[in-house]
């Protein structure tokens, strides 16, 4: 599928927002799902790049991308009008029940990307959205948010300060926690939520080869009654329940 880049905007020194026109993908997407972008039409870089859907509006979808390596660097050279080969929407996104009213969204750095689309859908349903962002020094990223005024936004200085900040937020009465960020941050959020007996979903990252469930490259260790097993981040996830994710145990 081809998606046409219609807008490119720097958000911070190393993060940029890409808006694509692609009705088929935009209409089918739900929060927490990802796309797999082909960077160019040669063999280098070889693999597609997995990126969370940052937002969807009408026929367009957008990505919030941190420039970290060859592929994302290459992307910054795209000019509006360029047509990009994309697969998606892929994977299983966030879920909640109608009865739940108040949500805590915890974003770690550019991990925030997958939470904005989620916030949009929650707000559309009249839910209450609290966004807790860490680390504070990265807060310029929030300039990417289209509707910051509709959320309650707070910050954790860094990972050390995060448990306290989250506990304070949970104390306000939160029905469900959603989190996306580095593994270390998600582990803290998972533990804190579980300690408070509040359901929590995590959006997990793994290096991916295919993004569509055929390579088994994106293994996430999952606790089951029969012991640990591996699930696919690209197809069974990227969103998993906090209880099922095993951050450390090996077999």
């Amino acid at each position, binding site marked *: 599928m081809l998606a046409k880049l219609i807008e490119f905007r720097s958000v911070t020194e190393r993060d940029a927002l890409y808006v694509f026109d692609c009705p088929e993908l935009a209409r089918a997407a739900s929060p927490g799902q990802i796309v797999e972008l082909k960077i160019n039409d040669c063999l*280098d870089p070889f693999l597609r790049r997995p990126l969370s859907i940052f937002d969807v509006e009408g026929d367009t979808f957008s990505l919030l991308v941190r420039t970290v390596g060859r592929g994302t660097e290459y992307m910054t050279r795209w000019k509006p009008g360029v047509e990009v080969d994309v697969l998606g929407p892929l994977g299983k996104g966030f879920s909640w029940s109608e009865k739940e009213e108040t949500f805590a969204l915890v974003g770690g750095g550019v991990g925030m990307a997958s939470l904005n689309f989620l916030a949009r859908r929650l707000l559309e349903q009249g839910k209450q959205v609290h966004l807790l962002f860490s680390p504070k020094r990265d807060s310029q990223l929030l300039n990417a948010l289209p509707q910051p005024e509709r959320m309650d936004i707070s910050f954790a200085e860094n990972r050390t300060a995060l448990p306290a900040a989250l506990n304070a937020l949970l104390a306000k009465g939160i029905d469900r926690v959603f989190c996306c960020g580095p593994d270390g941050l998600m582990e803290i959020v998972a533990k804190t939520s579980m300690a408070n007996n509040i359901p929590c979903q995590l959006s997990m990252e793994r290096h991916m080869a295919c993004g569509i469930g*055929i390579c088994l490259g*994106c*293994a996430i260790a999952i606790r089951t009654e029969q012991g640990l097993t591996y699930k696919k981040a690209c197809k069974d996830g990227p969103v998993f329940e906090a209880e099922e994710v095993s951050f450390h145990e090996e077999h």
Partner: protein
Amino acid sequence: MKNIKTKLGQAEFRNPVLGASGCTGYAYELESYTDLSRYGAVTLKTVTYTPRHGNHPERIAEVPAGIISSIGLQNPGPDVFFDDTMPKVIDALDRDQIIVSVAGDTIEEYVELCCRTSQRYGEKIAALEINAACPNVRFGVGYFSRDPQAAFDLIETVKSAVSLPVFFKFNTNFENYLEVASAIDEAGVDALYTSNTPLGLKINIRTRRPAIGNVVGPICGPAIRPIGMLRVWNLYQKVKMPIIASGGVYTWEDALEYMLAGAAAVGVGSAQFVQPDVVKHIVDGLERYMERESLDSLTSLVGAAHR
């Protein structure tokens, strides 16, 4: 009339472009991305004698024009495979398109897996594929790929146990791969399937540690195609059985190049990760080439570069 059908020993396929094991899932996952009827066949993800969790992440590292992978043969084992997976495969593919790949730690395990597959699904699949790259409990990884006698015994035993066509998939990384191939040739396999994936390592310069959880893994993708090409070239001069070549096939030109070197068919692996409908494009390209060159079949091109 142009005819792209491909005979590999007792097995016949609609075309010579096969989805390689472990890179095509169980085929049905690809249904919404491509026209599955264009696959010559799909070798399903290898099923092992006992379920395998697979290796610790990260399992994937990108390298120039390829990837290092380290899956560790993750699969649910034969019970789940037969009961849950195979019915879905049979819904998605035709009989002549299904190849079941098996691996065990001993010859007995291989044979038992082959027999179970044959009993339960013998009428519904095209061939069995012996994945000889599996670790051997006593002699380590790749034992059946590097010991000519072991390879011979394995194939002979399997062939006498089942009547389905049998392919032998082995790794050409060992210096004696031509000897192993000769042994297999004698044992009477239907086709020799080469994986041609040398071992490699990548270090993540941020973490200053190996990028792959398992440190080392095979390299696949176009980067290694010239290596595979040479090995297929050498094998073609050595053995009589048909060769299925995998290693870096991405375009119809790559498929043709392998055929000119001596392959009767090609296996497409990691290219599907990047372009899930790549097999269809390769088959289309080969058909257009036959048209342009007024070729009735591709058979005359197999090994043509040697002549």
